[in-house]
């Protein structure tokens, strides 16, 4: 049964690749997402129906939690993806920022990679062996690289190359860490040593007491650096803003909401081995420091960030930092961090999907150019406001309650420095993101358009006065495409819309945000139990 969870999307990916009909492929995508989510809810209701397969595949409490997040998100994203693919089905389209023409990757490749992404992420959550975990995480990088390069132009290509190289090198470091782990097992003798189970989580936990501490420490650090790269922890986060801002928004939502969590899960796996070997305090302290560094770096880059998709990406770096701080504090923090992973995934995915709506309608990623959205995209704009307040930790959303739980864990542990730094950084991010929101909500034309914009407008011939502006220079091919839009923006309050709100484009973010809202007010019993069980697996 567990194998079915992995195999179903993988087979569907092959089918999607071979199918020629767009309609059939899109329905296949949604159908697989629905069936996968159905199987996962069956797993949540009755785990005993999904017995472990050998010692390598099993859905334990931690895996179940992250599998649940990934599956639910994929369902939401698949609905938005259908809308996205409908919009993008033309042979070529003009670049939203620079105006040149480009084509998209074939839809078959995109859908196949999307399904393959689900399959590999599922494999990450159910693997019980460090080698298999490594293989599956590297596989997620490889199937998601073509997704980032869906829009075939130079920026997405640059993002793809950085993503591939930085993540592959990071994951290679994690492979070295996995071998170091094996080296620490080599010192184990007697009953605990059994070649087949040596690198399974349960086998390592059983043999933990006799593992070589030096090798294990080195292994932990290498694995943390390796999987931390994939998770987007600073200072290894450099691929993340580029990949998230250039990928189609449906892909960004999956990267941020599901993929980063998978890497986090890998970090938790090695932490629990360390804890079993009595090195828990060492591991948690390292995570705490790395988490605070990530939060600080992200806060610095969020403040004054003009690009709203990059801002969301840096916010993901920040939230990965928060997860590490929660785990680093331990105790209540474990529960808080796991709960935070759920909240962050839902909220961030919703925000990325909404950002996709803005991008489609306004054709810009600059937050200052998205004006009057409340009138033009009323539902998206309303959800955007709610989502931004949710992600910055305003009540009553789930992020607020999980961030507060982590804060309480800090107070309980008496780590006052951490508490102060954590609160200050959260406040800084709040200010940074709400400033952007205020900038976006300033409706109507700006009082003094920049000279460049005026010139471009003049080239369109629709705004006579601007022709007198000094420094009149434009660069060839971009002008033609831009001029019409900019001219209209300079002349009238209403920007020319290229896409309006539709049921398909707002349904998924709406549901996800309602979920975080509900989680802030009330945590269902089954989720609480699941979180507690998962936190137990982390050890002390």
């Amino acid at each position, binding site marked *: 049964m567990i194998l079915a969870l992995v195999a179903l999307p993988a087979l569907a990916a092959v089918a999607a690749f071979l199918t020629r009909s767009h309609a059939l492929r899109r329905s296949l995508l949604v159908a697989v997402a629905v069936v996968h989510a159905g199987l996962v809810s069956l797993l949540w209701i009755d785990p005993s129906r999904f017995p472990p397969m050998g010692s390598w595949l099993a859905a334990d409490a931690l895996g179940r939690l992250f599998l649940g997040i990934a599956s639910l998100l994929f369902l939401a994203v698949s609905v938005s993806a259908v809308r996205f693919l409908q919009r993008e089905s033309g042979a070529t389209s003009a670049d939203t920022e620079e105006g040149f023409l480009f084509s998209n990757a074939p839809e078959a490749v995109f859908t196949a990679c999307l399904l393959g992404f689900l399959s590999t992420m599922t494999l990450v959550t159910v693997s019980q062996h460090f080698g298999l975990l490594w293989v599956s995480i590297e596989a997620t990088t490889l199937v998601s690289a073509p997704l980032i390069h869906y829009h075939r132009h130079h920026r997405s290509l*640059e993002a793809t190359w950085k993503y591939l190289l930085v993540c592959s090198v990071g994951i290679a470091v994690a492979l070295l860490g996995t071998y170091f782990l094996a*080296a620490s097992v080599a010192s184990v003798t007697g009953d605990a040593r059994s070649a087949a189970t040596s690198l399974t989580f349960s086998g390592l936990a059983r043999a933990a007491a006799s593992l070589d501490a030096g090798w294990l420490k080195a292994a932990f650090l290498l694995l943390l650096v390796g999987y931390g790269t994939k998770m987007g922890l600073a200072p290894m986060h450099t691929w993340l803003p580029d990949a998230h801002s250039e990928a189609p928004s449906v892909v960004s939502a999956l990267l941020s909401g599901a993929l980063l969590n998978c890497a986090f899960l890998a970090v938790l796996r090695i932490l629990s081995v360390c804890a079993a070997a009595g090195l828990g305090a060492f591991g948690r302290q390292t995570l705490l420091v790395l988490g605070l560094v990530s939060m600080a770096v992200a806060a610095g880059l969020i403040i004054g960030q003009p690009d709203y998709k990059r801002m969301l990406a840096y916010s993901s770096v920040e939230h990965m930092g928060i997860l590490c701080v929660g785990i680093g504090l331990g105790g209540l923090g474990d529960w808080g961090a796991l709960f935070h992973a759920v909240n962050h995934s839902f909220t961030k995915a919703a925000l990325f999907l909404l950002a996709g709506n803005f991008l489609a309608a306004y054709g810009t990623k600059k937050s200052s150019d998205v004006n009057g959205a409340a009138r033009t995209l009323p539902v998206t704009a309303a959800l955007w406001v709610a989502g931004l307040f949710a992600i910055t930790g305003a009540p009553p959303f789930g992020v607020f309650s999980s961030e507060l739980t982590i804060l309480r864990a800090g107070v309980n542990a008496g780590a006052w420095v951490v508490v102060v730094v954590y609160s200050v950084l959260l406040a800084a991010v709040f200010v940074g993101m709400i400033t952007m929101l205020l900038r976006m909500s300033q409706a109507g034309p700006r009082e003094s358009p920049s000279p460049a914009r005026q010139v471009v407008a003049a080239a369109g011939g629709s705004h006579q006065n601007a022709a007198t502006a000094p420094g009149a220079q434009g660069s060839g091919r971009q002008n033609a495409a831009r001029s019409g839009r900019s001219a209209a923006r300079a002349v009238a309050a209403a920007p020319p819309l290229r896409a309006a709100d539709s049921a398909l484009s707002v349904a998924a973010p709406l549901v996800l945000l309602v979920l975080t809202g509900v989680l802030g007010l009330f945590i269902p019993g089954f989720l609480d139990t699941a979180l507690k069980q998962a936190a137990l697996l982390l050890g002390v």
Partner: protein
Amino acid sequence: MTTWVEGFLVILMLTNLWLLGSSRLLSCIAAVSVQGVLLGLLPLVIGIDVPAWRLILQAGISIGFKGIALPLLLLRAARSVDVRREVEPFVGYSASLLIGVAVLTVSLFIGLRLPIHGGAAPLLLVPAALFTALTGLFIIVSRRSAIVQALGYLAMESGIAAFGLALAEQEPLLIEMGTFLDAFVAIFVMGITIYHISREFDHIDADRLSSLKDSPQ
């Protein structure tokens, strides 16, 4: 057998210096290809306690993938973009060689002090593996051309795999195959990306891929 092992390991270390000192792309590809072949031959001579068919399979896959298929793939990519040599790397070739020697010293120093319990690993295996992995990493950060960076990744992967040989008895075959497959696909995807980069930009210098950054307000 021990002399064979030590001999192969010394050659492995020399290929790193070869890789560090060559500006010609063909020469770099050849160095990495030799590393792949060595990596395939090493398990045959080390005398690991696993069935013979597995050793042969492992050797075949390593030589086939890393020794032949991937270098050919990168060679094709290099031909299609018409790049013959890396011009002006961030770190010059003499400096690279000096750094290489320093890295070799450090690898020997660390590697000889990392005892692997219970394993019958040859003395030079861990230093050679670390040296290869670190050389690969250095190549990735010090060269501009995307193809040479991909070669660096391949060298890094080979070094790590060589380290894994010391622990091969604990590693299930399936995982080993998965690792190989991932490395193969990674280089494959990188090759495709390089092809796209060359079509889009008329160059493959990764350092000129710099349009994405945080622009000030």
